[in-house]
């Protein structure tokens, strides 16, 4: 008994306290700051006028509705194009499956604005394809700005999420169920809808909610291609950078509303998932069929055309980066001039910052995730459960809200961190940590505690057991997750746009600045470097993990 009490004062208590302090400082304090900013006016009095302004002026309240509309449309379209893709991929022996898989993942992981930027150059009012169609066959394809543009860009970027989720579901369908339904006379399309989709319902739901959340919080796409179609994350940013100091309160108020809305969606998601929770495990998994005849050709055509269209923006940007250009004008011929211009515009520093901050953030995330997972799973207590709950908070905070919250919290002395690398790293850690913690907890739960007990009973200390036994067993799951975190970290835009300056600028931000200044060649060069960086990272991931399962 005595020893047990003494053991409680071990190193883990220190970790618990440290995490609580860090969360209080970097999560709770900024959140309270944003709340305070939204309800306290410049004279220090309490007011809800910013909230009344939002809800009473349709100019602003409309943005929520717009975001909902476009996100629902994106969800429907991604399901419509993603499910057939996954069905062909899972049920038939298509040629080049590996290629299809890798390219669709690459589409999904590209930087948030490259798609929008590239589609504007292709299909905008003076886009290459627009001009071609207009001059050669006299077809006017209309505007791709606004609702349609966001829908196009986001659907092509997010359908791989549906694809990956559905692949998992289809893999778990038992062949005998399909045979049984065939024996009962249910075949073809009818069987696909009634049996196959029915069995995958929980996954379809999970996938659509993930897509919806991503589309809803997306900032880069509507910023570039939204034009008059005003969405909620962009409005937060516009209010923040709008002229006039008092607007900060309004930006804070919209942020608070944003957090409430996303929290609501989050809980609906939890509820819906729990309603549909049934699990199936295939004893006899589906045997892939040989695609034959016209059907086979059509299937291949569908998959390859879809993936090519989705990947086109990234290829086009790389192509552009080698074209000669002057400001906004493309000139004939090819050269490395755009890369030279980029080198003069902080390319080196951008790459260095991206890598240094990315690795720094990743190291913090991995170490914290392992420690927090251990605290939550093996040391369940009130304080540790609080850590668990707190770590989920960033799930419901859109990136621009995190950016503004950090600026409000750390713009003043004694903790003046704005404009530094530190604040950027804090933002990256906050943005990504919840995902890594979830996967670390899931991994640790599968490791039986008896292994650790064996270590301890053989005389090792708890810390030693943790470091030499538990952590190595968790490593595989964590490392593969980490590479995906890395990609989202280097392509982070929505919080970085508020926190960057010339010292802590990243590749993503350099690319964004060039795009917003209308400097095509430069923008293409930065975007290409970014694209190459994400592609290389993902290929490393695929080689290391050797798996076709990917957790996004």
């Amino acid at each position: 008994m005595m020893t047990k009490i003494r053991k409680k004062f071990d190193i883990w208590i220190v970790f618990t306290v440290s995490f609580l302090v860090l969360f209080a400082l970097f999560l709770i304090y900024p959140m309270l700051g944003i709340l305070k900013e939204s309800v306290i006016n410049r004279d220090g009095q309490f007011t809800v006028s910013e909230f009344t302004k939002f809800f009473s002026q349709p100019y602003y309240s409309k943005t929520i509705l717009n975001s909902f509309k476009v996100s629902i449309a994106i969800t429907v379209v991604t399901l419509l194009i993603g499910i057939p893709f996954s069905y062909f991929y899972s049920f038939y022996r298509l040629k080049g499956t590996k290629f299809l898989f890798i390219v669709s993942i690459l589409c999904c992981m590209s930087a948030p604005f490259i798609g929008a930027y590239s589609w504007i150059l292709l299909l905008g009012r003076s886009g290459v394809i627009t001009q071609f169609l207009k001059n050669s066959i006299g077809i006017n394809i209309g505007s791709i700005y606004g609702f349609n543009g966001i829908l196009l860009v986001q659907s092509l970027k997010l359908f791989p999420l549906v694809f990956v989720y559905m692949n998992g579901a289809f893999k778990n369908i038992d062949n005998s169920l399909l045979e049984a339904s065939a024996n009962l006379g249910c075949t073809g399309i009818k069987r696909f809808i009634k049996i196959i989709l029915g069995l995958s319902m929980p996954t379809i739901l999970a996938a659509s909610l993930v897509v919806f959340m991503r589309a809803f919080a997306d900032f880069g796409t509507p910023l570039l291609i939204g034009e008059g179609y005003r969405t909620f994350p962009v409005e937060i940013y516009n209010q923040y950078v709008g002229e006039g100091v008092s607007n900060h309160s309004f930006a804070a108020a919209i942020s608070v509303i944003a957090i409430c809305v996303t929290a609501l969606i989050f809980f609906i998601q939890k509820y819906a998932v729990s309603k549909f929770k049934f699990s199936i495990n295939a004893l006899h998994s589906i045997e892939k069929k040989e695609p034959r005849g016209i059907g086979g050709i059509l299937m291949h055509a569908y998959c390859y055309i879809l993936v090519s269209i989705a990947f086109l923006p990234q290829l086009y940007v790389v192509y552009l980066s080698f074209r000669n250009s002057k400001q906004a004008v493309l000139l004939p011929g090819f050269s490395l001039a755009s890369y030279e211009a980029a080198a003069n515009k902080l390319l080196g520093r951008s790459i260095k910052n991206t890598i240094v901050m990315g690795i720094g953030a990743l190291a913090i995330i991995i170490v914290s995730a392992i420690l927090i997972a251990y605290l939550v799973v093996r040391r369940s207590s009130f304080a540790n459960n609080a850590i668990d709950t707190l770590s989920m908070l960033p799930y419901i905070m859109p990136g621009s809200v995190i950016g503004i919250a950090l600026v409000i919290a750390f713009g003043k002395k004694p903790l003046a961190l704005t404009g530094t690398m530190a604040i950027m790293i804090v933002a990256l850690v906050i943005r990504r940590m919840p995902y890594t913690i979830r996967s670390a907890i899931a991994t640790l739960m599968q490791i039986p505690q008896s292994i650790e007990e064996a270590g301890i009973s053989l005389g090792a200390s708890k810390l030693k057991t943790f470091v030499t036994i538990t952590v190595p067993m968790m490593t595989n799951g964590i490392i593969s997750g980490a590479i995906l975190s890395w990609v989202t970290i280097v392509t982070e835009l929505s919080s970085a746009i508020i926190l960057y300056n010339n010292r802590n600028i990243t590749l993503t931000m350099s690319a964004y600045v060039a795009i917003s200044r209308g400097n095509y060649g430069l923008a293409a060069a930065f975007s290409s470097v970014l694209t190459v960086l994400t592609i290389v990272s993902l290929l490393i991931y695929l080689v290391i993990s050797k798996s076709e399962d990917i957790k996004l």
Partner: protein
Amino acid sequence: MKKLIATMLCLSFLMFVGCGSVSGPASSSGGTAPAETSEQSDKSLSGPLILYSSMTENDLDNLLKGFGELYPDIEIEVVNGSAGELTARIAAEAGNPQGDVMWGGLNSGDGDIYSDIFEHWVTEYEADLPDAYKSPNGYYNMDHLSTIVFCVNTDLEKELGLDITGYSDLLDPKLKGKIVLSDPNSSSAAWNNLANIMTVFGEDSDEAWDYIEKLLRNDIVISTSSSVCFKAVADGEYVVGLTYEDGASTLLKAGATNIKMVYPEEGASGFAFGCAIVKGAPHMEAAKAMVNYLMSPEGQAYLGNALGTLRFTNPKAKYVSPYLPDDSEINWVIRDNNWLRNNKENILKKWNELYTKIRG
């Protein structure tokens, strides 16, 4: 593996501890020192200077060149962004200032809203300026003028069979959806255009709002960036952009042959735009040298000749601007800066309400 984890642990702690020191200002030089009467070209000045600017690349390249001739040892780094972005950044960094000077975007229609993020300091050249261009608040130094223009794509204009000379032409149904303006809530160029409409049609008058409503009903496009309003016109995305002289004429200078600038026949006017020193700028001496240069007759004459696209405020500066029409060719109207400053919020609110009513 043990080593890997240990290294990562160390690394993560180093990041936490180390990053704080990356950014500390080199020294707390300057503070709020009184304006000194430093003469031109104090070549001993050296070190970095961080310039926050919303000006075009053409403007910045030439400023760096001209300033660099006088101060070869000052290394300038430019942070680009819209006026709103940059002031938001300066306000955010107030506890730990990162920038030294802001150039562009600060206009005479702003009033005092930025007084807490800039140094209360004007140059000795303030006495040279005509009253209209004197600092409205003692924080800004007004160095150049920004007159509103229509940037018109001449190929598309001809295709549509139009001859655009003023505001009334913009209501032609042929231009439905083909006129672009940036968002007056966030862009000073758009606010500049709105202010001109107010001045031409009558401040807050029914005529002015009636005109704006018709413009919105003609599906005028509201873009997020002010540079779209001239660049995208040259690209052929739009026929007309409501923009400002410097932006449009810079394209003419770059060799664009498919655009022209139209000063509305009903009347044209502009805001004076300025530069200011960031409060507590880390490189105060260099910052003052930069603002002095921008306000001096020598600096303005150099930039005026080198750019050819910008009108400056100091009457002593002599230069020629081959890309701008002569004063006499423009129907100038005088705007009431005081009225605009005091009514900006109200006008933007009405604009937003009208926009919502029409666009839904």
